[in-house]
């Protein structure tokens, strides 16, 4: 692990105990955030009929929700930096619940865009970021496992929400379903209430103890990062009170951003087009849907599994390589897909793709935590999501365009595979250099510390010598005094 990232937490994370309850809360929040926008598509056909609009107009609801969820990242980070995870998640849960209830009374499609898309999207953004941040505060040694377990929420919730939505739709129509879903989403508040802020006991000098209300207790929603950066001038200083913009000078973070932008162009499109590709091959609807179920099932188990593997002592120090390997493996899967014949080929592809997808998702935020450390993670993830917003949203439509131009899915798969390979290879090479530079910097720091240490030793030795001389002198004086006093 790079030294600089983990050492400035200021306390030892519990790595267990209440941490597992926090992981459960994050599991729920992350599950709703990722799975909910995708599961809404079941209602689209009826809403389309009701408002007499085209399919692309109704599809905007999902797109706006996803876009706002990603774009709301920095806002979420600022709030978490100031108030901690718990209030933000509870607020997010309330927002998205109220948004769905309001949407159930909607009279125009614009009403739905605003309620479900904008307000709902922000509510989900306020769920996603804090859940990830609080894991980095509670875990260090077992952090990959915690991350893997929390990220497993996405496939689990998708598998549950899809049939639930179908059931609600059949019994209550779309308005009633939105009302009930608003209630279901309020469970995010329950998840948020589990995210207890960490109370650490720091050793403060006595003069400072009187300043605090509770003696010696501090919340680690610290503004230290902002204080450190206050040396900058002008609007950079003002901005960095809220969010840590100096991250853009962090070498590892920049590598992560570039690699991720490349990767996300080809990340989600294959999931979106799996069922249509199967139908295009002549496979019936139920078998095509079954492929998605296989994919989700493998994904569900791949995420905690990857967390366990990443936690082993062989992989943890070089976790960046593991991540780039996962991305490259993903790319290879896509390139091989068009070469696999028939339904059994697609089943094999779904299994391997599920594994690859789960690996990348489980490691996605773990490597970021590894690079920037827990203190700056909140700002880092906010800035990362708003930059990733572009490729995530553009990826599927561009792939759709490729399919329309060539009337064949295999070019789309090649393109996605190539983008992921490019991203993975870039990450691998740049992280190789990054590890080397970090080692060099670590050695340099050790040399500096040694110098300082030896200088301190010399000063201490001198002090000891002086003390000895003083003792000798004082005993000599006493002896002299005593001899003087004797008559």
């Amino acid at each position, binding site marked *: 692990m790079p030294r600089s990232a983990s050492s400035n937490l200021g306390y030892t994370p519990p790595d267990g105990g209440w941490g597992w309850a926090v992981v459960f809360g994050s599991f729920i929040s992350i599950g709703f955030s990722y799975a909910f926008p995708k599961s809404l598509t079941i209602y689209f056909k009826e809403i389309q009929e009701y408002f007499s609009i085209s399919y692309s107009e109704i599809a905007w609801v999902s797109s706006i929700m996803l876009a706002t969820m990603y774009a709301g990242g920095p806002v979420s980070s600022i709030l978490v930096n100031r108030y901690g995870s718990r209030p933000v998640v509870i607020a997010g849960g309330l927002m998205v619940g109220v948004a769905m209830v309001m949407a159930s009374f909607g009279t125009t499609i614009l009403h739905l865009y605003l309620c479900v898309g904008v307000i709902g999207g922000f509510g989900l953004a306020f769920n996603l970021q804090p859940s990830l941040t609080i894991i980095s505060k509670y875990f260090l040694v077992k952090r990959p496992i915690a991350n893997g377990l929390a990220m497993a929420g996405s496939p689990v919730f998708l598998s549950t929400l899809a049939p639930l939505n179908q059931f609600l739709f059949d019994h209550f*129509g779309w*308005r009633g379903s939105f009302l009930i879903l608003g209630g279901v989403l309020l469970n995010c508040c329950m998840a948020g209430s589990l995210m207890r802020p960490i109370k650490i006991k720091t050793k403060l000098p006595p003069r400072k103890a009187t300043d605090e209300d509770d003696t010696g207790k501090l919340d680690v929603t610290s503004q230290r990062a902002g204080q450190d950066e206050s040396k900058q001038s002008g609007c950079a200083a003002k901005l960095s009170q809220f969010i840590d913009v100096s991250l853009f000078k962090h070498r590892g973070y920049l590598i992560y951003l570039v690699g991720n932008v490349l990767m996300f162009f080809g990340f989600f499109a294959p999931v979106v087009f799996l069922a249509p590709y199967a139908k295009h091959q002549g496979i019936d609807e139920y078998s095509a849907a079954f492929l998605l179920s296989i994919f989700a099932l493998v994904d569900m188990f791949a995420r905690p599994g990857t967390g366990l593997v990443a936690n082993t002592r062989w992989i943890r120090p070089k976790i960046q390589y593991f991540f780039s390997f996962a991305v490259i493996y993903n790319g290879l899967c896509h390139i091989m897909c068009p070469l696999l014949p028939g339904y059994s080929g697609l089943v094999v592809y779904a299994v391997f793709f599920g594994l690859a997808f789960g690996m990348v998702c489980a490691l996605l935020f773990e490597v970021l935590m590894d690079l920037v450390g827990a203190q700056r993670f909140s700002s880092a993830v906010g800035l990362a999501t708003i930059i990733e917003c572009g490729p995530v949203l553009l990826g599927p439509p561009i792939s759709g365009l490729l399919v329309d131009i060539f009337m064949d899915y295999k070019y789309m798969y090649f393109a996605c595979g190539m983008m992921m390979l490019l991203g993975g290879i870039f990450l691998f090479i740049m992280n190789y250099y990054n590890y080397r530079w970090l080692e060099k910097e670590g050695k340099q720091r050790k040399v500096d510390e040694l110098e300082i240490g030896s200088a301190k030793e010399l000063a201490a030795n001198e002090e000891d010598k002086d003390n000895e001389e003083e003792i000798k002198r004082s005993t000599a004086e006493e002896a002299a005094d005593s001899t003087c006093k004797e008559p």
Partner: protein
Amino acid sequence: MASFRHLILLLLYCDGMKTETTPSPQSDPVITTRKVVSKGQNQVTIEELAILKPQTIELSCYLTDIPNNPPYLTGYWTKDGKGIVNSEETVNRTNEQYILKKTFDILAKDLGNYSCIFKEIQTQVTFVLDVPVIKDKRDKPIVSYTGDSVVLACKLKQTPNTWNWYKANNTEKGLINVTANPLNYKIFIHGNETKLTVLNLTEEDSGKYICSAEFDIKPSESYIELKVLSYIEPLKPFIAIVLEVIVLVTLIFLWEKCNKPQNDNISAGENELCSEQISKLTRDDSNGVENNTARQRKLEH
């Protein structure tokens, strides 16, 4: 000619069947021909034909690739499983094909399944003659709420003369008249699709709605079921879930408050110890400072 037949055989190999409609220029009433080609023996082929108006139609069955190439075969026709009298004929082999044709006059009562059957080789080709069937029908009812409106839609590939909507009350069908009830119904017809909008829904509006595509020969019908609920229905599970969330959140916060005082007591004690140690360290430090200044003074002297 031979190359043309080879082409047809090749197309068969890919397709399995080939249909074409060519108006035969022989007699005044336009006769539509439908041809199905079947390859090999022990085959059962089914072909659906959409009949829009009363017409005379000639159905032909072409057989190829029969093993042993017998010089003749016997074939006959059935309608809906029952043999048609005097339809049996002997089919001679012509250029490695066996052709069986028959002309039928189709009116509304004549719609059904017509099959040509070849006895010796158990080969059967069935033509399903029917009005166009409205596909993608929902088998579950559409749910809506009182005071709200709902849109029911029907769609076909072919364009009928017109569309009609009926509401079914038990066994009777009542035509929906927009001019009589302009506040409650709106009908939109655009070629091969139609939409019925029911406004100001009440509980009585629940039931079966039938959309009927009117063709010259016979109307094609499909039904959609509508269920109208009051707002109380979804409110009950919603309130139940909200209560569950409130209970859980309260329990979690209470649990945290119960554990908090214990932690407070422990940490307060620790803090006192901590502050004692810290003050001791600072006293030692200040002693060191005094010593240094004393030493400096002595050195200066």
